[in-house]
């Protein structure tokens, strides 16, 4: 597990005066042409001579701190040793540093807000009712700093669409600055029930945009209960219809837990009958973090117990030609008929294996566990392939 944010070891005096977060794009290249250095921060990993002219310097413990301009230098702890060339980081006034973008990862998600109009039982990012629109401002900046060749980024929350028009502006901005980059948005879809909003979203005409929207059950009451909001199912479904009416790509995301596993095949039927035009359906295991820990008794079910329901849902969806993917499940807890749609998906920075897995011969094919699962409890049915 990587630490995506933490306290810097030491920050220069000048920085203690800053009021706003500052964003830096990191470079590890001491020979970077001078004209390019001003906009970059140099990441020092060893004790080579200090290159001049960079806008800022970050120094890892493995480098000597000699020779860096004191007013532009920040020391980092060993936990940030994974920082690399092309990464984008944000240095905050309170002396914390956050990794916003890692160039060597395919799992870059930008958190746009922690506010949300849902209050999901298993939310991994519990919503907060504070104005955190500075995150949006930061996203606009970060987009400009990302390498043009970036393959994919995600926008997540909270609920990104609570920004309304400003969210649409961010999409336009991203399309302009990263025209080659796939963009994946996680949303509860309700804002799209407003046809004007769906239309504005479509008019961005982003070349490679997909929105992932959760539908947890074909039973509206169950969905509303899971997201703790009455009327959510109805609005979300109408949102999906509007998006497809405007030709937008939609992924349906289903988190499987005790409240949703029983209705899985009926949900697959519902999608096949009503939403056959969605682009993908993702069936995902539970992440033991955030609210999921508080509600663990009403959520936790050993995946081995619903493996037949999972197979049935996959069978229905694939029979109807729906592109289906099963995420976040250890390989030994699914039936073999799920394998054609089984995906190794857990973001690299939070994927680990359990101690039972050590002798397993198929670890390289396995989706493994969320690090949170390793810490907070996982299936007792893990069986290594030997």
């Amino acid at each position, binding site marked *: 597990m990587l630490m995506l944010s933490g306290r810097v070891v030491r920050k220069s005096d000048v920085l203690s005066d800053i009021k706003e977060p500052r964003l830096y794009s990191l470079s590890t290249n001491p020979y970077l042409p001078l004209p390019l250095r001003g906009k970059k921060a140099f990441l020092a990993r060893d004790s080579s001579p200090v290159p001049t002219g960079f806008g800022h310097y970050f120094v890892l413990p493995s480098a000597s701190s000699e020779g860096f301009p004191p007013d532009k230098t920040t020391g980092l702890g060993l936990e940030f040793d994974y920082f690399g060339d092309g990464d984008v980081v944000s240095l905050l006034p309170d002396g914390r540093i956050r990794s916003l973008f890692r160039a060597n990862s395919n799992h870059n998600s930008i958190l746009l807000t922690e506010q949300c109009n849902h*209050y999901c*039982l298993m939310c991994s990012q519990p919503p907060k009712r504070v104005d955190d629109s500075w995150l949006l401002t930061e996203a606009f900046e970060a987009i400009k700093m990302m390498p043009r060749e970036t393959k994919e980024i995600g926008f997540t929350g909270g609920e990104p669409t609570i920004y309304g028009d400003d969210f649409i502006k961010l999409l336009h901005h991203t399309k302009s600055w990263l025209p080659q980059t796939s963009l994946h948005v996680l949303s509860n879809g309700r804002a799209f029930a407003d046809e004007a909003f769906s239309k504005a979203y479509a008019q961005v005409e982003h070349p490679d945009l997909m929105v992932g929207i959760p539908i947890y059950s*074909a*039973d*509206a*009451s*169950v969905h*509303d*209960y899971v997201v*703790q909001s*009455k*009327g959510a*199912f*109805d*609005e979300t*479904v*109408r949102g999906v*219809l509007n998006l497809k009416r405007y030709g937008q790509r939609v992924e349906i995301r289903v988190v499987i837990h005790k*409240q949703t596993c029983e*209705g899985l095949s*009926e949900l697959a039927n*519902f999608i*096949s*009958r*009503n939403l*056959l035009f969605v682009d993908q359906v993702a069936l995902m295991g539970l992440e033991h973090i955030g*609210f999921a820990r*508080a*509600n663990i008794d009403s959520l936790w079910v050993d995946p081995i117990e619903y493996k037949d329901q999972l197979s049935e849902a996959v*069978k*229905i969806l694939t*029979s*109807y*030609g729906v592109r289906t993917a099963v995420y976040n499940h250890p390989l030994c807890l699914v039936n073999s008929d799920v394998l054609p749609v089984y995906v190794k998906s857990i973001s690299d920075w939070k994927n680990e294996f359990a101690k039972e897995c050590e002798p397993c011969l198929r670890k390289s094919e396995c989706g493994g566990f969320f690090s949170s699962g390793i810490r907070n409890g996982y299936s007792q049915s893990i069986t290594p392939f030997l």
Partner: protein
Amino acid sequence: MTKFSPLVEYKATQGQYQLLPFKFEPLDDHDVVITNYVGEFAFISREDLETTLSKKLDPNSKIYSLLRSRHFIKENGDEASIELLGLKTRTKYSNLRNFTNLHIFVVTLRCDHSCQYCQVSRQSENKVAFDMTIDMAEKALAIVFRSPNPAIKIEFQGGEPLLNFDLVKHIVLSAKEINETQNRDLQFVITSTLTLVTDEILLFCKAHKVYLSTSLDGPEDLHNRNRPRPGRDSYERFVEGLERTRGVLGFDAVSALMTTSPASLTRAKDIVDEYLRHGFDGIFFRHLSPYGFAIKTKSYGAYNVDRWLKFYEEGLDYIIELNKQGVRFTEQFAALMLTKMLTSNDPGYVDLMNPSGAGIAAVVFNYDGDIYASDESRMLREMDDTTFKIGNLFTSSYEDVFTNEVLLGALEDSFTLSAPMCSDCAFEPWCGADPVYHHAMHGDVLGRKPESEFCKRIMGVVKLLLERMKSDPQVKTIFMRWANRC
């Protein structure tokens, strides 16, 4: 923690739901099937049906959840279900917008076979009397390309179309030439016994992507009995023709149809085995139609619908067994019905559409220059009934043909959503109108449903399919696969 509300907070209070339109049909003493306007269905007990109707359904029950998610009931504030029902209705009828796809050219009535049940063919050397002329074909093509449909299928029928292959060639080449500026998705199919195929014919078909549809009635003895030709070698020549055709056009460029003759009735398994032996991945169990020689030779009256349904059931069950053993083989009539039952797409099956596909989904240009509303309509003509003649290539314009009062009247009068006994039938969403059949048998396009063999046959097949998937989840899985083939 108290900040989360329990499930019960998100359930409606008792009796707060409204009924959406649905119909039902008893399956046995205990259960009924309920269907909505878009063909979605559920099996429920009579008791649950009554509870549902009297608005006493418990919001916490599984049945409540099922009926709400399948759009049989709605709560206040459920807007999505209405929107989805509308969307599915539009999807179901969306084929209508495209108008005519299938254009049948009867290029000759002459045939080298003299099948007992054949509706139309002639054993004759008289080309003048029974062949379509180039002039007629040209006029017919002009009508074909007036169709607004982006996809056009031209099917050559007979008789045996290969006996007038020069005309087939001419039509294919002319159609392709016209299509250079029209850019339709243009398909050609020849319905042939394959007994007369030559390499020259096949090379032409290959060059112009012409598919072949053929007939195989079963094992050698049955096939030869059903399909007599001079030399009694129909089967032998079919096998040879099939192999030759597949060799040139490709294995999947040939499909086969069977017709159930009285002699077929005890041979369902043999017939399927014969199809398997030839590498086909499906079969279409066809009943006899009450037209032409079938009636004259009394072979139509030789069995009734109940007998045919028994044959169908035997064949279907054998095919289901095959699938359970891992052989992917489809009964194609079931597949068409299942597409209607299990998906929101309409398979576009011309013989089972509402409004009827006659004239609007398919049209027939007969060898003599007359235009008919369907294949069956021109067969009626061979019994001296020209009711469904909707025009003539020399005297009618496109508008004359498709706004013909006979055609429009028949379509409107047989429309199932307003036809007595159809409009309240639970199977209506999966069925279609057949004005030509009912006219032939009952003397009017609506017919008398309690006596209608058409009605009995469709209801019998549907009940069989429902029963099989209700009692066996494995069959449901197999059916789901069939439903998504179309």
